[in-house]
């Protein structure tokens, strides 16, 4: 793989792309809450939000206005500064991680003839960077729970620590086998690797399943939503939050869901390569959308696990499987 040459990487271009990512992803993250409520409602044969605007589409705006105008309460004994910056950590790390994942194929702007690679920065350690950023997102819930002087928050942040730290291991190990096959840490190389051959999920089905499971745990989605599970710990790390600070946690969570979807699409599902007559940008949009839908589908179908089952699953099942997968991949590469 030759190093990808990016002809028109200028400061202006990068800034425009960063602003676009911020605007589009936060809009999609807000829209994701609407989609989630609708899909869950349909799966339970309900209607979901439908009174605000056509099909309830403006519910999103109504929720946004509500979140912005709500009183921002900081508890008396909370550590004010940490309490205030914790939501920012979650949202910021989620968006920073999106800076290094490619979403669309590069394209040329027709009139001015400028080639635009659709990635804010194609760093050659993209996978590491994104995983590291999502791992740094751990500090959001952790500090939030510990700063609010609330026992439910403390339990929530304890669960954050065990869950995120444990599943980081599985994410890393499950991505290691595809990295060995591709021989690069850049997402663009992952995509180019799958241009001619099959999708990587054909060669690495176990890694794909492990990555999905670990990704759900890292984005705090339902089978593993122990951080803020209402029936047990009120609301976990967001118990004392209100208004837009609470909203930032959720924008971060939904942005992370999209990131997991993009990584799964680019690394395992063929990325933004054309498929027959279907153009690449449509392919990857479909893959990301299905990945998002699958998260909601799983939420509607499966109950969540206990914390001890979570740890059992991570350390006794997924982690050994990931290691075995890496070893077998290595042996096959060496022999074949």
């Amino acid at each position, binding site marked *: 793989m030759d190093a990808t040459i990016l002809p028109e990487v200028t400061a202006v271009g990068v800034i425009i792309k960063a602003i676009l990512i911020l605007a589009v992803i936060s809009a999609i993250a807000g829209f994701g809450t609407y989609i989630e409520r609708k899909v869950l409602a349909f*799966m339970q044969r309900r209607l979901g939000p439908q009174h605000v605007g056509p099909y309830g589409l403006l519910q999103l705006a109504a929720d946004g206005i509500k979140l912005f105008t709500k009183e921002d309460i900081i508890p008396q004994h909370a550590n004010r500064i940490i309490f205030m910056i914790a939501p920012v950590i979650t949202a910021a790390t989620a968006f920073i991680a999106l800076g290094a994942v490619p979403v669309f194929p590069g394209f040329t702007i027709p009139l001015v003839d400028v080639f635009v690679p659709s990635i804010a920065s194609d760093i050659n350690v993209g996978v590491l960077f994104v995983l590291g950023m999502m791992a740094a997102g751990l500090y959001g819930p952790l500090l939030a729970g510990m700063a609010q002087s609330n026992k439910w928050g403390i339990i929530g942040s304890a669960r954050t620590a065990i869950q995120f730290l444990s599943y980081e291991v599985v994410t890393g190990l499950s991505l290691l086998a595809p990295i060995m096959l591709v021989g690069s840490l850049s997402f663009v190389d992952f995509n180019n690797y799958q241009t001619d051959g099959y999708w990587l999920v054909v060669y690495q089905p176990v890694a794909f399943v492990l990555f999905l499971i670990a990704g759900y745990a890292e984005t705090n989605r339902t089978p593993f939503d122990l951080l803020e599970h209402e029936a047990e710990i009120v609301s976990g790390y967001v118990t004392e939050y209100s208004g837009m600070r609470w909203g930032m946690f959720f924008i971060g969570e939904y942005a992370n869901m999209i990131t997991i979807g993009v990584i799964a699409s680019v690394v395992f599902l063929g990325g933004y390569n054309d498929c027959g007559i279907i153009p690449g940008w449509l392919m990857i949009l479909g893959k990301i959308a299905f990945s998002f839908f699958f998260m909601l*589908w799983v939420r509607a*179908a499966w109950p969540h696990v206990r914390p001890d089952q979570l740890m059992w699953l991570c350390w006794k099942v997924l982690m050994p499987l990931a290691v075995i997968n890496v070893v077998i991949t290595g042996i096959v590469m060496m022999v074949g």
Partner: protein
Amino acid sequence: MGLEKFKNRNVGTQNYVKLDLTPPPKSGWCAFKQVLSRTFKGELFVGLWVTLREMINALFLGKMHTTQYPLQKLPISPRYRAIHDMLRLLESGHYRCIGCGLCEKICIANCITMDTRYDENQRKEVSEYTINFGRCIFCGYCAEVCPELAIVHGGRYETASEQRASFSLFEDMLTPIDKLNLQQEYQGFGAISPNADDNIKKTPLAY
């Protein structure tokens, strides 16, 4: 299936169907085998299929559960005891009440108040009739005792109001004279609700 199976109260002699509960695994190897079999049985996908099936049912086959209440209302049973209605005679349009006072007598909540007098034809007319809905317990005795089927329970079950009085005067309960052709007779005890056929379901004992 006959009833005799249920009439047998001697515990232990009935032919119960036992659930297929396997004993908990005894050794580590058994636990491992259990994990393997549960992993590859694909039961998780059964759950996924069930939710997807319900979504298809709801979206495309018109099996959405929701009744959008203020816009749509489910039909209520004719035996439902809501705010009372005073009916009219269909031929003359005169109210049916003959002022016998039985409903006032039988009312166990003492909420019916009526006053009668003789009109110019020496016929008894109701000069005053109110039901205090703050006291009414909707027992239905008044409707049951009425010899003329004049007072019945209607279908107005949304009884939130700024004033109690807006329901309880004789004129409010009386069928409006221009809607006489829409007046519903009480269908009698044992009448079934209009959507009774739709509500028949198989008892969920299949599992």
